[in-house]
């Protein structure tokens, strides 16, 4: 079959660049042939005149069509399934905002491969079979819980499947069983720490040494803060349900970018407008092809996640390329006066200004055929010192920094606290009236 189980996975982990290239070419050929067995891809390939036999090396990936989230919805429920139903051992779904979910299928080998990839992530971060691991995210259709669970078991860790919530019980289990590693969302890890501090307990007194944080975006400052409060080392994780879930990319002890397992995923970073590769080190949309999944291969999946590749040699010795922090979603990209602008770039500048509250709105209009951008920011209530001059000065400084960041001049409007939509939930940050 070629989809061979490798319990340890080390033959993949330490491949040289040449070995990886060779493996990727062979795996891509297999994946495309396998994908062609699904109703969706067989029809797609036929429409586009693609013969799976034309794909002979990894460079041929550019001949293949993209797959989008919408394609996954259209193929729901089983349009991308490539194997007999009896070979499927699990499925996960991710809910879409438009109602139809997307469903991902796994054979036994697929689950084994996922567990191997996940175990490699945990081991890379320094976890071993001697560790006690508390999994503090939800189980079920959400891939984060079961993904980490299987990986940790594969590594031989003592696994406590605590699931999400019930903070008092989480703290009790961590303490009573000498938990050394946790998996949680950063915000929940912070919540647990705050609860402990409220009750007069110092999280540093726990035996925790490693934390795997993911499933929501968070800043480097948040990571450092959590590391400081707990005294553990926190690792960033990247995954998406379409690519199994967690276990796609993970940080090594260098904590400088996440190694993406290139034996399992063919990586492209493309300009989301032109769909051509970006220059080395430039930000673009991450596009992934599964190389080791049998029940449901996905070809050139447009993740919509924007990142840059770190191609320099990692001191850890692994050749698997690293992903930088996610800088946003290509869905969010704005084109203003022909310039690509991401709200995250603007947010980055705003976060440097302590006199601002967290809320902001980017308002786009057109005047005399020219795009106009107004960034509305809230003054923090405590930051107002009564002086008109200092407000003007701060606004001018912000205006200058925004111009340096995005390359053109945006108007900055300072508004009263509480007058913009709150940052929690799906706040609408961009109002486009062009």
């Amino acid at each position, binding site marked *: 079959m070629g989809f061979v189980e490798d319990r340890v996975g080390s033959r993949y982990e330490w491949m040289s660049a040449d070995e990886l290239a060779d493996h990727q070419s062979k795996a891509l050929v297999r994946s495309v042939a396998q994908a062609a067995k699904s109703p969706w891809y067989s029809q797609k390939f036929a429409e586009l005149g693609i013969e799976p036999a034309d794909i002979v090396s990894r460079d041929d990936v550019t001949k293949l069509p993209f797959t989008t989230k919408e394609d996954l919805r259209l193929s729901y429920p089983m349009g991308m399934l490539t194997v007999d139903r009896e070979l499927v051992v699990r499925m996960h779904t991710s809910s879409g905002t438009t109602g139809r979910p997307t469903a991902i299928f796994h054979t036994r080998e697929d689950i084994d491969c996922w567990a191997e990839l996940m175990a490699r992530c945990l081991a890379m971060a320094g976890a071993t079979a001697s560790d006690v691991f508390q999994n503090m995210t939800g189980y079920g259709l959400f891939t984060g819980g079961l993904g980490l669970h299987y990986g940790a078991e594969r590594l031989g860790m003592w696994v406590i499947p605590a699931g999400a919530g019930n903070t008092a019980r989480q703290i009790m289990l961590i303490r009573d069983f000498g938990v050394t590693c946790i998996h949680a969302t950063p915000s929940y890890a912070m919540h647990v720490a705050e609860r402990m501090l409220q009750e007069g307990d110092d999280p540093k007194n726990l035996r925790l040494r490693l934390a795997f944080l993911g499933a929501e975006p968070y800043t480097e400052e948040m990571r450092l803060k959590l590391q400081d409060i707990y005294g553990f080392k926190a690792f960033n994780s990247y995954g998406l349900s379409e690519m199994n879930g967690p276990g796609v990319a993970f940080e090594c002890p260098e904590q400088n970018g996440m190694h993406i397992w290139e034996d399992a995923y063919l990586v492209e970073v493309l300009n989301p407008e032109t769909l051509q590769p970006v220059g080395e080190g430039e930000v673009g949309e991450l596009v992934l092809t599964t190389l080791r999944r049998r029940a449901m291969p996905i070809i050139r999946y447009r993740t919509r996640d924007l990142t840059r590749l770190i191609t320099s040699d990692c001191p850890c010795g692994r050749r698997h390329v690293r992903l930088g922090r996610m800088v946003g979603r290509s869905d969010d990209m704005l084109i203003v006066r022909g310039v690509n602008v991401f709200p995250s770039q603007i947010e980055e500048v705003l976060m440097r200004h302590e006199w601002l509250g967290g809320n902001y709105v980017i308002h786009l209009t057109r005047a005399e055929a020219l795009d106009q951008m107004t960034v509305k920011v809230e*003054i923090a*209530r405590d930051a*107002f*010192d*009564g*002086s*008109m*001059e200092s*407000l*003007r000065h701060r606004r001018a400084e912000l205006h200058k920094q925004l111009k340096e960041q995005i390359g053109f001049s945006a108007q900055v*409007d*300072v*508004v*009263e*606290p*509480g*007058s913009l939509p709150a940052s929690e939930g799906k706040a609408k940050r961009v109002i486009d009236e062009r």
Partner: protein
Amino acid sequence: MYNEVRVFVENKPGKMSKVTSLLGKAGIDLLSLDLADDGQFGVFKILTAEPERAKEVLSAANMTVALYKVAVIEIPDEPGVLVKLAEALEAANLNVTDAYGCIIERGRRAVFVVKGDNLEAIEDAARSVGLRPLDSLD
């Protein structure tokens, strides 16, 4: 030295009536109300005998309020006083960023509100020509 009440507002209609009605309902008399307008936002400058209470009332209504130090110089009702003050400030080479006059009791008592980088020196200059800086407007 004295506290002026300053309120940050976006330039939207209705802000002035909100500020005045909140203070009116609380029984706080306004001696002076001035709006410094930037075009995009504005800052109300309010002179009242009860700055701390005015701040509390406006803050409780979720307005963005700060107390701002100014020099309030009592001006007796006699000719030539302002000229004396102006000359004293000039002689001391003091930078004045904003100033306005305000009548406390018609025909009897007025004050001159002065803002600048060095309020203590401004008050000293006023004293040097026989004028009295106030720290209360009761």
